[in-house]
């Protein structure tokens, strides 16, 4: 077997050095009844590389990649073009096969890019500090709520009706077992409506999304001020981080914590994971933050270097008193993010964001002209919602046969909600061509 170096002769010599007759003797502490005498049944045995490739390619071949169709699916995962050099860098063995940088003398590569990543995330969101990543936006959202509970010593989160349902469900799940209250508003493109009225003395935070799940941009400055007045924190979730190249960052509107999904920069769709959760906050809350933090210092010769720092917040030091149980995060996805954003730079990010916005605006014009379709979103970045004259799930299904992935139907995100059934959420990125858009509009007209 190609991954196992030992020959039978090696094994014999090693057993002799250990002083045991067979490898079975090394498993002597396993209760007799639990020792498998033979190879586990019902599974295949070793395969050559070529055989594995055939098996995997057969399964991959049963999927229809977004790139093989005109694809307009978004809602927290976006199909962007990732430059070839990003994938080259993240596959360098020194990055790919390294561990969490606990030994900083031989992990400066990882630590320096994490420091750059933290800086990039802080700049994009308009916040003071950011951590070294979380699993994804939904888990980052939960961590933000729990952090707000610690900071305010309160236990009720109010969630916008325009928060991504997966983020909402993840927060609700944690609320149930961790014992904090969650008040989630009914789905609505007007995501700020009704939130301020809900704030009371027990509220630890209000969670909004920007752009919201319907793609709509909403100014939450007044809400942030209301939160501050009531001693609650304003948490803003950003599902599409490329938007930060075109819109006012949430930090400028008074957010206390900004979480986000970083997949859009450097990372592919991958059917939903692995992604990279972004987490940024005001500096005064840094000691309540979850996850790894990389900080600057000097070595014994006075040279600048980086280390993981403020570890006394973390589980491996603080155990049951840690701010979170997170250990592994999304290191390599964060590297992909850092490399891609470094390639883009100020100019590239703005151009990319402008192109995304222009494509979405163009698509909205084209779809808006289809009879029976009404636009639900006024101000948006690269995603918007339309209302169809019939159930959107059926329309999406029918459009697949015409080579179009039309977006996310309301029924997929809010099953059983009749009001959302006819809603279709549509995203456009730089990867869509004008021909894709025309094809979508024409096919939609045929199907409805």
């Amino acid at each position, binding site marked *: *077997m190609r*991954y*196992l*170096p030992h020959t039978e002769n*090696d*094994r014999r010599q090693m057993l002799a050095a*250990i002083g045991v007759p067979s490898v079975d003797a*090394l498993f002597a*502490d*396993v209760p007799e009844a639990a020792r498998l005498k033979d190879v586990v049944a*019902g*599974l295949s*045995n070793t395969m050559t590389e070529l055989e594995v490739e055939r098996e995997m390619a*057969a399964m991959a071949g049963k*999927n229809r990649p977004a790139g093989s169709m005109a694809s307009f699916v978004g809602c927290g*995962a976006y199909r962007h073009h990732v430059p070839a050099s990003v994938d080259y860098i993240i596959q360098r*063995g020194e990055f790919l*096969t390294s561990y969490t940088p606990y030994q900083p*003398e031989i992990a400066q*590569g990882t630590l320096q*890019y994490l420091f750059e990543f*933290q*800086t990039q995330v802080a700049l994009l969101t308009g916040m003071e500090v950011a951590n070294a990543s979380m699993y994804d936006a939904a888990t980052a959202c939960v961590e933000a709520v729990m952090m707000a509970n610690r900071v305010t010593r309160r236990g009720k989160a109010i969630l916008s009706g325009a928060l991504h349902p*997966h983020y909402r469900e993840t927060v609700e799940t944690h609320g149930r*077992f*961790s014992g904090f209250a969650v008040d989630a508003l009914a789905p609505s493109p007007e995501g700020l409506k009704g939130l301020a009225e809900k704030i009371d003395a027990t509220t630890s935070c209000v969670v909004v999304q920007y752009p919201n799940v319907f793609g709509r941009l909403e100014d939450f400055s007044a809400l942030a001020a209301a939160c501050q007045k009531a001693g609650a924190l304003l948490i803003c979730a950003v599902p599409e981080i490329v938007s*930060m*190249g*075109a*819109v*006012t960052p949430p930090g400028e509107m008074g957010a206390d914590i900004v979480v986000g999904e970083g997949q859009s920069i450097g990372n592919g*769709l991958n059917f939903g*994971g*692995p992604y990279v959760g972004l987490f940024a906050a005001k500096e005064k809350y840094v000691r309540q933050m979850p996850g790894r933090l*990389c900080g*600057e*210092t*000097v070595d*014994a*010769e006075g040279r600048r270097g980086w280390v993981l*720092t*403020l570890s006394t917040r973390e*589980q*491996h030091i603080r155990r049951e008193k840690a701010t979170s149980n*997170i250990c*592994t*995060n999304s*290191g*390599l*996805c964060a*590297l992909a993010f*850092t490399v891609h*954003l470094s390639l*883009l*730079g*100020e100019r590239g*990010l703005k151009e990319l964001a402008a192109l995304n*916005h*222009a494509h979405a605006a163009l698509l909205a014009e084209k779809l808006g002209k289809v009879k029976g379709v009404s636009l639900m979103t006024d101000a948006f970045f690269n995603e918007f919602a339309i209302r169809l004259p019939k159930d959107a799930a059926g329309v999406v299904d029918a459009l697949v046969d015409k080579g179009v992935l039309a977006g996310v139907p309301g029924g*997929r995100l809010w099953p059983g909600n009749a009001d959302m059934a006819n809603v279709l959420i549509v995203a456009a990125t730089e990867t869509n061509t004008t021909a894709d858009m025309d094809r979508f509009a024409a096919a939609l007209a045929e199907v409805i």
Partner: protein
Amino acid sequence: MDKSQGRTGVSGGEAALAPVVTKSGHRALDQNEPLIFEQGVPGRIGVDVAPAPKVASKLGAFARKAEVGLPCLSEPQVVRHFTRLSQKNYGIDSGLFPLGSCTMKHNPRLNEKMARLPGFADIHPLQPVKTVQGALELIDRLAHWLKALTGMPAVAMSPAAGAHGELCGMVAIWSAIAAKGETATRKRVLVPESAHGTNPATAALLGFHVDPIPAAADGRVDLAAFEKKLGPDVAAIMLTNPNTCGLFERDIRKIADLIHKAGGYFYCDGANYNAIAGRVRPADLGVDAMHINLHKTFSTPHGGGGPGSGPVVLSDLLAPYAPLPYVVHGKDGFRLVETKEGDAKPFGRLKAFNGQMGMFVRALAYMLSHGADGIRQASEDAVLNANYVQARLKDVMTPAFGGTCMHEALFDDTFLEGTGVSTLDFAKAMIDEGYHPMTMYFPLVVHGAMLVEPTESESKESLDTFIDTLRHLAGETKKPGAADFFHAAPRLAPRRRLDETRAARAPVLRWKPPAATKQAAE
């Protein structure tokens, strides 16, 4: 003082190791690389973006006015920057990486190639299910392997990492307790003192009171102490097996039976499952829930700290509470269940979308490559290698416990007594010798712990060289002046020891433009 003793092969002693001053600040392959923010010229670009079509803006009042503050570089500059950074990193590809508990085994590149097939990498999590049948088949097939290997009836696939898997398993237990109306009474979770920090952190997240169980003299759970702690208020035990001392818990069946008799559940931390995969099925040990770190046992890359993946196998009692979403197979092919249906009582959703698909592809590619026979052989070789290291070092270093070990060998710092050399110093000296240090000061139950996990990826020659190096270093600690020598290590790494106290006292967590830094200092 002559500090050069024992440094055979280095002519000129300490002088030859003194820092070489270069004009550029570079040291041959070790380039002095500034931050990306300290490079670049406005207007440069590393990605060519097509011009945007002319269309009326829909940004309304939200158009960004302020600069983001990102540097502008071309592609060759960015590639060089990150290549230089990579050269300051140690990975499994660079050398033996004996980091106990972390399982730094070879990461096959075939896995990477498979994960990049467009049929897996370029599918959206919310595409219509009929367009992703192959992806759901892959998840189902991986689940089948995990269930067959562990003997467990169910598996939750969505957890994003080991600690996330722990959370999933413990929430399933919490849900089962809630279903019996016992949440108010069953508040205590028993956790051995040797456990990973994630165990108590996870239990605390669920509002459980963490009650530590001491270790017995043989490095295993103190059965008598454990029995005394049992009672109607105990929700679960969280036990790692093989444990963090690298030992198999001999009494595991008894522990499982006792916790079950007390009405509690057995959560097994599967971080060390790589020692027994294919040889022991956790189901036969009485486990109710166990997470599997795909990035340990099944070779998906650690990536400098993630992404991981932590599927959780569940017993029949806990299976109904498995989180959403999950895959089922029916007459119309595979389906993704995203809401409660049938008799299932899902406890909710743990993250967005459908789990760490990219890691699933890699893990399955590894499983298919090895096969059930190869997985068994890999576990055996991992245990063989650890025992070989222990056997050949036991006369110069001090094994923490007697007898053979499983996949990792644990030493304490008795052999360093009186030398003035600490576990940390000893480990840092390994860096100069070209090795990544072993896990240090963990588990907490052993003084000055050094946990060595060679994994099955190492050849006998590689182990022999490693062992000879450690034997040499152990000998060096006994010589006069050893404390100074070891305390100054590492000398040859891209950085000497870093000042962690300074980093924590006044944290600098991001780059700021020089003007901003200056203002802040005033």
